[in-house]
């Protein structure tokens, strides 16, 4: 500072201009306000956490829903979609088979018959799978083979039932022959 005595004086005695002290309750006021802010922030956090949980749940729900939709889209089309004309016939055979099974259920089962039935079921499943990937021209042939299998199953069940009903005390042996003859 050049010649200004006032500036020089102030600069020389600068510290003496900062002698006043604030009341101690200024800090308590600050502290209280900080507490209130923290409280607000904490309750805000709680709200935020609840909101986040809800969002997470919704996201999980949406994800699961999406997954199932995808799964369904990935599932092969049913017989109704591919060959609607034969679906009715299939249902008819199935009903008949179910009925026979129920009748059969009251008698003792032959392991061999069960195996044969199982093999027929597998053949049906294979044919169904084939049908889903079949080229347009071959569909009819596969469907007729499919219906043949159903027919065979019904026949097998009928014969088994006949045999059991006519000779209730007979062992399993004749059943095997019957099953094999189809």
């Amino acid at each position, binding site marked *: 500072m050049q010649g200004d*005595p*006032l500036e020089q*004086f*102030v*600069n020389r005695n600068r510290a003496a201009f900062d002698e006043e*002290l604030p009341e101690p309750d*200024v800090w308590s006021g600050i*502290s209280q*306000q900080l507490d209130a802010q923290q409280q607000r922030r904490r309750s805000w956090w709680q709200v935020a956490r609840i909101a986040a949980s809800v969002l997470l749940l919704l996201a999980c729900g949406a994800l699961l829903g999406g997954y199932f939709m995808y799964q369904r889209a990935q599932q092969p089309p049913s017989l109704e979609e591919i060959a609607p004309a034969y679906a009715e016939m299939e249902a008819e055979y199935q009903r008949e088979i179910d009925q026979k099974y129920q009748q059969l259920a009251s008698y003792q089962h032959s392991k061999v018959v069960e195996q044969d039935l199982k093999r027929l079921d597998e053949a049906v499943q294979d044919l169904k799978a084939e049908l889903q990937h079949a080229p347009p021209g071959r569909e009819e042939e596969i469907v007729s083979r499919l219906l043949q299998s159903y027919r065979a199953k019904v026949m097998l069940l009928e014969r088994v039932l006949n045999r059991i009903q006519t000779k209730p005390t007979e062992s399993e042996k004749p059943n095997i022959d019957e099953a094999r003859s189809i």
Partner: protein
Amino acid sequence: MHAIKSPAVDNNHLKLDYASTHQEIVEKCKRGNRRAQFELYRLYSKAMYNLCLRMLRQEQDAEDLLQNSFVDVFAKLHTFRYQSSVGAWIKRIVVNNCINHLKRNRLQIEELEERQAGVHPPEPLEEEDSHDPELSVEAVKMAMRELPDGYRIVFTLYLLEGYDHREIGEILDISEATSKSQYSRAKKKLREIIRRHDFISRK
């Protein structure tokens, strides 16, 4: 070589140290540590309170402003990145709050300048009694309290708080030239007040 190089290195180190003064306390404050917050308050409250007093004159106003300013300081501290010292950063918040407080009470620097220039033509006292009065801290402080708001603020910011006219222009939203002229008028006015007090007390 060593002798030439070392001062620059030392200087650099000092500069770094300046901006990062109380870094540990500041970082703790950022995490909401109440003891560190009190420590920061303890370090700067006195200087800031005296600044508020110079700006606002009333003790109650100064204390209210000090309290609110420190609440602001702790709320905004996460934005502080050590571009300046934390002291300078806090001071800027306090100064801005003081200006806003005064503006709410209709502070008009430009208007004031016009009015002061019009109402008070060169004071006759100066020629009559041109000797420099005995200066004391009390006399200067008392005279400062009598200065009109605009003069007092520019005088305080420049001479006591160490801002330059460009910075004062920014703070008060006036030109650098206005700040300069306000300051020289404030100084002149202050001398007159001190002389008048001195004259009265000698009588």
